[in-house]
């Protein structure tokens, strides 16, 4: 299943991918030069062009796989794209190259946390705490890992340790809200969640949590306006549609609730299909039909960035295939 080829071949292929997927002229002009790719990747990352950054930095990685700085940057790009597993591998590589790198140590723990590997995350974050004492993030995320492990008192203690940083950090505030929720202190939970939402007003998870707490308080009607907005903004997320449907049903808007349930079901089916296709491709990456199905599904679901990443190998391996060209055009658009 695995594919082997020379680094030079990969560089040429990735350059082609970059050009087909609409890399900037400046980036294209860097050609196969790893240093130029690195610089272009850094620039793309700074500009928030995550998928460009991944392509460039992957290109650069071929020439300097042991560079901890590059691994951290590539990890951050993967993280920004929601690709936690490759992100963790990057941070682990960075940490292996520089065992004293506190940021890399934190990021390893953080990506483990994102992958729901809480016992390992807690251990990794505890190590990171000792390596970067000025950084509150290891403490905050260690607390969140402890929370996920059901150790509420210890989680709260860690958030206390994080001090003022925790009181301003949306993730920490979400954690405090969840601790309060677990203790059935709905008033405190609402307060923390509202504080988190005020600091991160566009964060979907925080708004969902806020809605769930309102639901628990029997205040579905109060949750409705924001969840309605959220459902309109993120109609391609089943979690949003699910909570929205529950809020509608519990506000007495049964018919609208049932319609939202149907929207949720439809969206759920789309996401399930995407998940299955991704899983299949993870073990059979050369399956062009599946890859094109996945890209098509991602585009239809309003995820051109992820589609672009998945289309890359097809562009590399089947540049003359008209279906690939068509999808590349759609991704560009």
């Amino acid at each position, binding site marked *: 299943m695995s594919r082997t080829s020379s680094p030079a071949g990969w560089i040429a292929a990735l350059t082609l991918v970059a050009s087909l997927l609409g890399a900037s002229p400046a980036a294209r002009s860097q050609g196969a030069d790893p240093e130029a790719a690195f610089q272009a990747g850094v620039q793309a990352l700074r500009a928030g062009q995550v998928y460009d950054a991944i392509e460039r930095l992957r290109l650069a990685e071929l020439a300097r796989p042991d560079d901890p700085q590059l691994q951290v940057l590539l990890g951050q790009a993967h993280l920004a794209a929601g690709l936690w597993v490759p992100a963790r591998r990057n941070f682990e590589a960075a940490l292996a190259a520089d065992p004293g790198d506190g940021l890399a140590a934190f990021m390893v723990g953080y990506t483990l946390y994102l992958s729901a590997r809480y016992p390992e995350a807690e251990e990794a974050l505890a190590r990171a705490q000792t390596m970067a004492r000025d950084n509150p993030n290891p403490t905050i995320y260690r607390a969140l890992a402890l929370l996920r492990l059901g150790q509420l008192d210890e989680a709260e203690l860690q958030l206390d340790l994080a001090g003022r940083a925790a009181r301003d950090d949306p993730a920490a505030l979400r954690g405090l809200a969840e601790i309060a929720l677990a203790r059935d202190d709905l008033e405190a939970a609402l307060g923390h969640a509202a504080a988190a939402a005020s600091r991160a007003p566009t964060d979907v998870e925080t708004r969902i949590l806020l809605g769930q707490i309102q639901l628990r308080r029997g205040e579905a009607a109060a949750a409705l306006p924001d969840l309605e907005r959220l459902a309109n903004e993120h109609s391609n997320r089943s*979690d949003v549609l699910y909570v929205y449907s529950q809020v509608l049903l519990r506000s007495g808007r049964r018919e609208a609730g049932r319609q939202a349930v149907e929207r949720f079901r439809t969206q759920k089916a789309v996401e399930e299909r995407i998940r299955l296709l991704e899983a299949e491709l*993870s*073990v059979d990456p050369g399956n062009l039909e599946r890859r094109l199905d996945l890209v098509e599904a991602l585009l239809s679901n309003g995820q051109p960035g992820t589609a672009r990443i998945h289309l890359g190998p097809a562009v590399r391996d089947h540049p003359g295939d008209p279906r690939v060209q068509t999808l590349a055009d759609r991704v560009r658009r």
Partner: protein
Amino acid sequence: MSNRCRLLVAGVLLWSLGCGPEADPPAPATPAPAPATSSEPSTTPSFPLRDVTAGSGIDFVHDNGADGRRHYPETMGPGLALFDADDDDDLDLYVVDGGPLPGGRERPKPPNALYLNRGDGTFERAEGEDRAGDRGYGMGVVVGDADGDGSPDLYVLNFGPNALYLNDGQGRFRLQPSGAEDPGWGVSGSFFDADGDGDLDLYVANYLEYSLDEPPCQAGNLEIYCSPEQFPPAADALYLNRGDATFERAVDAGVAVDGRGMGVATGDLDDDGDLDLYVTNDRSPNFLYYTEGGRLREAGIEAGVAYSGTGMAEGGMGAVIADLTGSLRPAIFFTNFQKEPNRLYLADEMGFFDDHGLQAGIGLTSQEMVGWGIAALDLAGNGYLDLAVANGHVFDNAEQFVVGSAFALPDQLFLNRGGRFDLEPFPGTPLSSRGMVSGDLDSDGDPDLVVAGCGAGLQVWENVLGQRANFVTLDLVGEKPNSSAFGAQVRAEVGERTLLREVTSGGSYASHSATTLHLGLDGAAQVDRVTVRWPDGTLQSAGPLPAGTDWRWVQGGDPVARAPTP
């Protein structure tokens, strides 16, 4: 590799990506005398159960047929049942067995096992052709009076055709051609009166469509069991009893078809006098059925119990419905796959459910486990139902690729402190547990526990916390044909408190616990008054019933004290 790409990176990705309230329970009582044993029972100070397997006479070892081909059914059983098979007033034990699956080395299939209680909590395996020694590849079992003759019958769920065994009342069984020989992969079931005609119908939860031609999946170079998502769900079935223990599959009865069925629990969730159902599904939304005029109305999503709070279909496993909070409202509790908390759903006045597992202390503490069977039992007699949960990983080689996990995982005991639960991990060497049942094995007045391990033996746990003086037990016998009294609801007034209990079949995972009700008195001298709402809706009351007494109550008559077991 098959065209469904059943390799396991995919599998792993899919699977990993679920006294008063203020008072402490009584201090542990002086342990009751152990049953006659040939070796010392295992005791851990302060843990309310002690392992008495060694002296129990139960030598059953589950044969899951694993021979390296990693057929999926190998890792899913077994279930078991506690019931009085031979009408001698003690609990007998029935365990299903697997055996070799086709295509491997041929050898005889071991029969399912019936163990008869000697009356002291020790058992002897019943021999003979009429002991329901079914030779299908067993998954689960459920008990109920299918033919309405007054004795409990056995419905065995198999990977392959299921089987109904009718009991002659003396613990001897004959195979009944029933029309309910569902050919699918049955796991759990429940007897209940779906159509209101008085006899017991049968809900069968089928898992998924699986062929033994399927190759194992892989995680890197490691062969592993596949993920359920790689196979289509198998439709569940509702079988309506014609009144003579023959059944016909209900059509247009509202049975949903798109779940990978695992557990089935029944209880009167809408307090309308009939039993409703909760069906846990693996990687597909759970079902909530309200029984309405002979039909089932599936309302899982609208009621908020089909998915997690953010709309994720979880790996639902076993389920129970019982009043777990002392609020006189039946709750739904079910176990989940790893990384998914076990959930405790409580309904509000409008019939919408919320997960209170987090608040109750039984959510996050279960996240690293893969939960299966459940027993809801009042160990101390404080009037609150504790929860015992059977845990074990699906992957027999989990140690090699699931970080920090293992095939055998410790079972968990959640002691109920008035609606909030404190975790007590089981001591000793864990099994990869599947089925779990509760009942008073040694007739000492308190409930005990039996757990079945996949590819392993059983564990028998004696309750050393309870004391006879802290309980009143009640056996309900319904009017025939539902002599099992499934659907009967009991409200027991004890001082200022009222206990709500229901008589149901199935529950747990692939298993059936004893149906004797243990009414915990929390130190009170008596149950002041018991009111039974029988399955046909008639009400009867009686009382007081003094502490430490056992009662049998036949519908229409008065409760009759049973002779205490010496």
